[in-house]
């Protein structure tokens, strides 16, 4: 799946909306356009993020059971260069081929004993290390001194800034979908508060998981694992993000949103994180954690917990399962060794069943949206192809249960969610349309898709 292909749909859609806006002769065009552009560009940011994720996970997933180093040419994944240096087994292999007088063709090795001799010869050579290799290892030792220039990068990685951006975009979608007039300041405060709360939760999560992260390929370059920041500083940063974030939500938006934010931080750090190592129920708790941000966006706009908020939360909740179960399928070795209780390891059949179940649930939830007056009936119709496609991939994953079907499902989930939310927003039932229905004579419904007026 090329980057161009996955980026084209939202850009085309955004262009279409702008044209539609102009042709309807809207009253307050500049504000709508700004609002629409903002939401569309946040979706584009999400797409950039998804493509980055794809690059990261493609290279990670290619590892299988063997440790192949990442290609150095890919500058975006440069934090993982250390993999090459730190793979001790590869060093031994290099020493065998270059140093010991071994016949090059392996087919001449008939018995395992000869292989053992070579291995032990290489190991003894390893212990008599030449001066060059020693200094190379010395160079891998780093002083544990915090440099202020590195601090922004370190904190960004500590707070999982890209995941935080995705969380904020789901919260802003929740805000945008609420059937109330749009308020920019409230929107910005809600987004900022959600972002800060997410940063705090992610930092505490990394603080709790240092030795486990060290042992998993996906997470071994995190700042606390590498000693770039002390645990005390990580906790202080989490407090400096979490307390103002929740306070901002409570005082600047409304207490309900603040309470949801605080509850979500608690759920993620104190329930999900320890539960990961105790029971497979962690996946369901994690799905709730992912479902709360759009609910927070909705409550920030309306101030109450409506059926619409729960529907949006339900869509995010269902989406988590195909996304995470497909991802975890390729990480079974690391989870098993690291001691993580995941369905993919302990109950593989359940893992695939649940993923498929929730893909199908997405179709059902999309159909409920017009019933609750959140979107027009065009939404389930337009979203049906993408929901059917992810359900098809979910079915393939259920039936085949192999690496390629799990990867296809995972990558599909990365673009499925932003696209679904974008389509949902464009199909949103306009507040003004409901008011104008009585005024319009002849009921000229010129557009199938109406854009919400501020």
């Amino acid at each position, binding site marked *: 799946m090329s980057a161009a292909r996955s980026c084209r749909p939202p850009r085309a859609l955004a262009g279409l909306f702008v044209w539609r806006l102009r042709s309807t002769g809207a009253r307050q065009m500049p504000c709508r356009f700004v609002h629409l552009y903002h939401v569309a560009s946040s979706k584009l940011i999400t797409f950039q993020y998804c493509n980055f994720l794809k690059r990261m996970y493609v290279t990670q997933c290619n590892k*299988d*059971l*063997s440790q192949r180093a990442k290609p150095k040419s890919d500058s975006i994944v440069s934090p993982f260069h250390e993999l090459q*240096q*730190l793979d*001790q087994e590869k060093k031994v292999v290099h020493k065998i081929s270059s140093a010991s007088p071994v016949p090059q063709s*392996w*087919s001449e*090795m008939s018995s*395992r004993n000869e*292989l*053992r001799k070579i291995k*032990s010869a290489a*190991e*003894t050579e*390893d*212990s008599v290390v030449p001066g060059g290799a*020693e200094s190379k*290892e*010395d160079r*891998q*030792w*780093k*002083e*544990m*001194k915090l440099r202020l220039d590195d601090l922004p990068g370190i904190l960004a990685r500590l707070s999982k800034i890209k995941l935080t951006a995705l969380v904020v975009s789901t919260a802003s979608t929740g805000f945008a979908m609420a059937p109330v007039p749009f308020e920019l300041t409230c929107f910005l405060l809600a987004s900022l508060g959600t972002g800060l709360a997410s940063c705090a939760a992610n930092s505490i999560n990394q*603080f*709790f998981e*240092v*030795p486990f992260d*060290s*042992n998993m390929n996906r997470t*071994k370059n995190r700042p606390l*694992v*590498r*000693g770039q920041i*002390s*645990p*005390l500083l990580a*906790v202080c940063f989490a407090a400096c993000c979490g307390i103002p974030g929740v306070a901002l939500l409570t005082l600047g938006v409304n207490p309900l949103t603040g309470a949801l934010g605080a509850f979500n931080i608690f759920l993620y750090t104190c329930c999900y994180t*320890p539960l990961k*190592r*105790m029971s497979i129920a962690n996946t369901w708790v994690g799905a709730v954690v992912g479902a709360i941000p759009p609910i927070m966006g909705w409550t920030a706009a309306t101030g109450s917990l409506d059926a619409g908020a729960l529907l949006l939360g339900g869509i995010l909740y269902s989406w988590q399962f195909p996304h995470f179960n497909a991802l975890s399928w390729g990480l*079974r*070795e690391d*989870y*098993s*060794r690291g*001691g993580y*209780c995941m369905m993919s*390891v*302990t109950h*593989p059949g359940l893992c695939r069943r649940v993923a498929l179940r929730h893909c199908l649930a997405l179709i059902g939830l999309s159909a409920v949206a017009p019933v609750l007056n959140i979107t027009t009936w065009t939404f389930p119709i337009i979203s049906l192809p993408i929901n059917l496609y992810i359900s098809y991939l979910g079915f393939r994953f259920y039936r085949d*249960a*192999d*690496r390629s079907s799990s990867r296809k499902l995972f990558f599909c989930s990365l673009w499925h969610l932003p696209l679904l939310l974008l389509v949902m927003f464009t199909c949103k039932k306009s507040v003004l349309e409901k008011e104008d229905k009585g005024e319009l004579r002849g009921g000229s419904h010129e557009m199938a898709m109406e854009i919400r007026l501020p």
Partner: protein
Amino acid sequence: MAAARVLRAGGCYRRHPLSSASSSASSGSGRAAERGERPDSVGLGFRPPPHSHSDWIGPPDKHSNLRPVIFYVPPEESALERRLREARQEAQASNQRFWARHNRAFRQEKEEFIYSRLKAKGLEMRDESGQKATLSAEEMADFYKDFLSKNLKKHLQYNRDWYKHNFRITFLMGQVALMRALRWLRGRKRNVEQ
């Protein structure tokens, strides 16, 4: 076979300093501190530069995947700072012991599982081209599930210990940071008065 390989690997493995360093540190730390040396660096094969006043962190350990830390012992280490350093050393040693043993067991059991499955299929460990024969991910899934369930209790115990260590170390770090801040403020006040 697998046991012999593990023993050989253990023989070539550098004697880990932390278990010995933690015992010698408490006795030698006083003398070492006077000389400004770091007792931890003895077995790790790396000595931080003498002018450096910070801790040093190394590459991940071959067996435990954890990064060893060589702690700086200041010449006038207070009791609180010493408690913090010893807590960190103890946590590091305990983590190292657990993960080295755990990962070694994983590798060993994985080899044995692959060997037994290949034998059942009638295949050799290495095929004609000399490549190491591997099982598919689906065949390995049985091993992963089995290994995880066998070690669950061990992990639960380790989790409890790790959380205790982590909280204690972070709390001590907070106390030390506060003490140093107060000391610095007192120093400034004295300078201003003078």
